[in-house]
């Protein structure tokens, strides 16, 4: 299995998706920097800490920007075997279709976690720049590291809810359907981010879970977790079933 994951990572060598995805997730720290600078000039008396910035960043990273980027990289990972006609080269090697998908999902998880780490690190760095110029209260590495598990947990939850897009990419053999789908779910997430019903919407439920907002909504944490797991299971089952039974014409 390690070999399969290794091969999936080698396949990404020189891939433009790597720098594109890194630039994409760095938009969150940059947006936060702009917001912080704007707040500094508009409300000079308002004090905010590094932790406040990380708290705000969860909305951007879990609900908006990062989610769209993760759907795009999922579509890339799962559709490229069709677009580059490589399945007919690697399946007869032989590679079990299930193992191939497991390798891809593992690579996707690693990529998502790495990008969440980049987002977390990016925020720490841009806040450092802000701190040098304007001074940011409670700016320290220990204050930042507290948020790293939140980011990694968010990454795992985002990975779970992304599995239906793997199926969409596999089924349509391209980028278009998953990317349109991601726009739809992001719009839904934006609409439900401040609404208690967000706990029923798996992609918003992630945000509620990592922010610890579920209890204040009046619903149980288990409910959101079950919804996320059901969506995830459906995505995984459909993806595996489709490739296992598909004729590669």
């Amino acid at each position, binding site marked *: 299995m390690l070999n399969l994951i290794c091969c999936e990572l080698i396949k990404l060598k020189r891939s433009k998706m790597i720098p594109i995805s890194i630039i994409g997730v760095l938009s969150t720290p940059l947006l936060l920097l702009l917001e912080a600078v704007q707040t500094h000039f508009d409300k000079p008396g308002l004090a905010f800490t590094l932790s406040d910035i990380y708290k705000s960043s969860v909305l951007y990273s879990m609900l908006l920007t990062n989610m769209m980027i993760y759907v795009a990289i999922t579509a890339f990972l799962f559709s490229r075997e069709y677009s580059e006609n490589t399945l*007919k080269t690697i399946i007869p090697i032989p590679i079990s279709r299930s193992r191939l998908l497991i390798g891809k999902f593992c690579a996707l998880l690693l990529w998502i976690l790495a990008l969440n780490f980049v987002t977390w690190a990016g925020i720490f760095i841009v806040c450092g720049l802000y701190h040098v110029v304007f001074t940011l209260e409670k700016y320290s590495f220990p204050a930042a590291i507290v948020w790293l598990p939140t980011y990694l947990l968010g990454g795992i939850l985002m990975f779970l809810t992304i599995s239906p897009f793997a199926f969409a990419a596999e089924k349509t053999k391209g980028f278009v359907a998953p990317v349109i789908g991601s726009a739809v779910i992001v719009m839904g997430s934006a609409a439900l981010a401040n609404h208690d019903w967000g706990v029923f919407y798996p992609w918003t439920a992630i945000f509620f879970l990592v922010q610890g907002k579920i209890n204040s909504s009046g619903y149980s944490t288990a409910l959101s977790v079950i919804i996320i797991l059901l969506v995830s299971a459906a995505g995984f089952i459909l993806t595996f079933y489709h490739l296992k039974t598909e004729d590669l014409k």
Partner: protein
Amino acid sequence: MNYIIETDHLTKRYGATAVVDQVNFHVPKGKVYGLLGRNGAGKTTAMKMMLQLVFPTDGSILLFGKDCRDNAAAIYKNIGSIIETPGFYGNLTGEENLEIMARLRGQFCKNAVPNALEIVGLNQEKRKIFSNYSLGMKQRLGIAAAIMHKPKLLILDEPINGLDPIGICEIRTFLSKLSRDNGTTIFISSHVLSEIEQIADIIGVMHQGRLIEEVDMAELRNRSRTYTEFDLSDGQMAAIIIKSSYPGTDYTIQNNTLKVYGPSPVIGEMNRNFALNGLLVTRINPREENLEEYFSKLIGGGGIA
């Protein structure tokens, strides 16, 4: 006979259409089996079924004497393949692509990749990105991937597509050598009849999903040669005359029809000799039939391609 590939009523249907219809292939060990047929005849689908890319609707496939669905890992490690234009990762070099194949196969040998690249003449281009390859180079890399692990069976669908004449000749020579020296069994399809003719030991012809002919190449050459056909009153007597008067003549007799193969300057004399021996010759017909004409007739005209 020891068959490396044997199919039993292999069938693939899409809806009501049978793309491959009850096909029984018999590919003996160490032989080169050339599969011919027009576009859409079902050649690629049949090969894809052998490689588990397409699932058969009916029938079975035995590879190395075993059902290909059982113990696939052990069976397919001994197979190399190319299906249509080979697919590789465009952002990687030829060398990196082959390394991935070797790693996935679990038979990563340090020299396997450079050796395979050298065989197909890509050793000077190993650092070139695959997306910058020409069609011929892509095809060569596909061949390198297929032979890299020294398989006992090669399943090659149109492997010479896109190759220049020198490249075609090199690959043909290499495949012949593999079969002759290593005993590799090769199942190869092509539209280029002359290429198949030069390399194959056995020919299979598919048409509209069916295998309509499976014949030894030597027999096929007999069928395809220039010959003169005599219709006579007594075939046995004609055979005695030929044996005694024209020793070394290549001929066959079926009922009272004599076929004398090859260009013969003594046809007229032979006819006179038959007449002098009391045989009635009712028809003399010089025939010349090349392989392409033979297949055109077999599949209903219009050529193979």
